[in-house]
């Protein structure tokens, strides 16, 4: 029995039907009379490296931000685990998230409060991890690994760390904890992040122009599995033997939320319904925070002007794209963490339904529907 070898790197040797390959770097099969051959995984050659990547990543208590400067704008985000949302069946479901400690009126928010800055600003986001370790990853923002907030490529924060980054380009982003992300993201540790053009809120880049908009709504569909609320902070992580508790094997969402509001309250709750006058310009910032794909249908033609925080046809590296139109009633699908910025200009007065079908993460079948509305006066 030979078990020393592992599979070749990457996709392995490229085989070609034109050029017979031979010589060095070619694999060798061992005769396997009567028994099934085994494609072996790699062996763990350095336990320390393996654990630093997985179950025991580096942690810092008072992390020092490299090249720290005085920022143009700063935010503090403190981890909390006391949020609750009352669901349509009356049950209260727990959420963890981030709070702004200066906002005494809103000490257990979900989603986390928005981080909103302007293009060109140097930003500090200071994480207070409270209990245990967490991180903040500014999704779509691209700083150095020190400031990227990924435990397994940098460090987890045991107490506090200030992430330093520069808002190079306006658009829609979000931030979330990137420790044991499967659990922490599901439990609500995310919030929106918007970079406005230099003119500030009320303006958005559309191609090479900056245009005003009249109203704005941030729609974040999410699928919620209440059973995961009983799991501990580090559920599933274990060093030494692999974790075989299978705590997160099944993801069976029961509730469908839009920006923290459970369906069907989403139909009328003013936190999520979009309101404007006929002819006004409404900017919809859409983020899929569900683990399944989300199929969205809007009652009006929508012009997609930005994707993943980048302006279609924008002035920087985005000149190979252009805005495109989603016709009214036509479905469009966003996979997890994708963001689309949509401009809508309603031409009729009334209440118009918006639907978001959240699909099963494996089967792709619709599982839950979120309904809200664009109310035009």
């Amino acid at each position: 029995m030979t078990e020393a070898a592992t599979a070749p790197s990457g996709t392995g040797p490229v085989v070609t039907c034109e050029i017979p390959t031979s010589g060095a770097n070619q694999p060798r099969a061992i005769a396997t009379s009567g028994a099934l051959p085994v494609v072996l995984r790699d062996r763990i050659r350095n336990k320390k490296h393996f654990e630093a990547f997985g179950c025991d990543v580096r942690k810092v208590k008072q992390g020092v931000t490299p090249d720290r400067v005085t920022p143009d704008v700063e935010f503090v985000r403190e981890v909390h685990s006391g949020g609750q949302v009352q669901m349509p069946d009356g049950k209260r479901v727990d959420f963890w998230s981030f709070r702004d400690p200066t906002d005494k009126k809103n000490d257990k928010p979900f989603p986390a409060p928005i981080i909103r800055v302007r293009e060109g600003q140097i930003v500090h986001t200071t994480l207070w991890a409270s209990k245990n370790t967490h991180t903040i990853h500014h999704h779509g923002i691209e700083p150095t690994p020190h400031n990227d907030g990924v435990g397994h490529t940098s460090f987890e924060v045991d107490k506090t760390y200030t992430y330093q980054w520069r808002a190079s380009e306006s658009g829609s982003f979000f931030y979330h904890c990137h420790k044991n992300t499967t659990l922490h993201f599901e439990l609500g540790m995310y919030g929106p992040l918007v970079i406005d053009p230099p003119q500030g809120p009320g303006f958005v880049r559309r191609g090479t122009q900056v245009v005003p908009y009249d109203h704005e709504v941030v729609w974040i569909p999410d699928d919620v599995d209440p059973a995961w609320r009983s799991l501990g902070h580090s559920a599933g992580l274990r060093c030494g033997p692999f974790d075989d508790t299978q705590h997160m094997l099944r993801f069976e969402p029961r509730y469908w939320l839009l920006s923290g509001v459970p369906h069907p309250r989403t139909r009328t709750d003013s936190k999520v319904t979009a309101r404007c006058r006929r002819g006004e310009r409404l900017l919809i910032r859409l983020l899929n925070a569900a683990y399944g794909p989300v199929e969205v249908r809007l009652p009006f033609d929508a012009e997609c002007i930005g994707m993943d925080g980048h302006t279609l046809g924008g002035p920087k590296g985005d000149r190979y794209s252009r805005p495109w139109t989603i016709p009214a009633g036509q479905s469009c699908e966003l996979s997890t963490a994708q963001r689309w910025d949509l401009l809508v200009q309603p031409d009729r007065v009334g209440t118009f339904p918006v639907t978001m079908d959240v699909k099963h993460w494996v089967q792709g079948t619709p599982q839950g529907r979120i309904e809200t509305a664009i109310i035009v006066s």
Partner: protein
Amino acid sequence: MVEGLVSRRALLRSTAYGLAGVALGSGSLGTLLRAVGAASSSASAGTLELTIRECLVEMVDETRVYAWAFDSPEAGLRVPGPVIQATDGTGVSIRVTNAHHRPHAFAIPGVVDSGPIPPGESRLLEFTAPPAGTYLYLDPLRAPINRVMGLGGVFVSQPAGPAPTPYTHPTTQVRNLFDDLGDSVSFPGDPWRPERTWIWVFTCVDPVQHDRLADEPDLAPVAFAAEYLPRYFLLNGRSGFFSTHDPGTAPTGRVGQPALIRTANLGMATHSPHIHGNHVYQLSEGGRVAENVYSLDTWRLPPLETRDVLLPFVRPPDAYPWPPSDPKVWTTDLAGDGTKGMVFPMHCHAELSQLANGGNYPQGLLTHWVLTGDLEVAG
């Protein structure tokens, strides 16, 4: 131990069957692509031999799962199958032998289809390589079973002769992008070079359903699919620590060395690959070269689809200050996991895929890309 595994699996683990290993060499995908590109014009034709066999595949936590795989003299037994490469417009010759006890087939959808190959028989497929781009090959029988059990891979068609893009028929915007790579204003550094190509094949494994096939070879595809609950998520057949630390999967380079990444999903779930550090340009969608080339940090990758993306290897645009004052940033192992340089992850954001057997974060579907230095200034 995975719950509910079938009897044959237990037998396979026991001493009743000897378990033979397959020794496999190593090779960098980038190196091989370069070698093929350099030699292709003068090479003589050959027939690629692919043999379909049953095997066991070991997961990141050492669980062994029953699988069906393509075996080839060049690449050995592999799940997913080896990358098959040809040049646009040239004749391709592949002989597929079915060494399994069930019927199988080989198809590149839209290009060639062997039809059913009975057990013990072979089919010689001769066809002309399609326009340059990324294609899937798979066993289309009893879909999705045969593909998901391991019988699938990526077929790459290269442009004939030197070409500025990876396509025979690039769109205007794809051509514009590639023309700009290496331009001192837009993308200082190098133009794209074909050897800077990586391939990411997304697959998943439900050991319960896979092992079930050993005992119930007639299992209905609809039952297989309906009960399928993936527990392992793999990139090029690896996951977690091993896919992040695999140079054939994890792109590396300096600022100014753009890379093409061909992504393909042979699994069951829609994936949502998210890359840190740089946005990518989505070059193709649904088998077509993109006319509208979006700059994305997350792209939708449904089952049976491919997306080519261009990772520009530009300076992380939101880093401040740049360059960092500490020159050791390029040689430091910040996370302590053995990787030096500026390390950024690419992971699927449908986060269930970040797990292995319902836990063990992040031993799921992810890899790294690594900046090893800033832009190299001539002189």
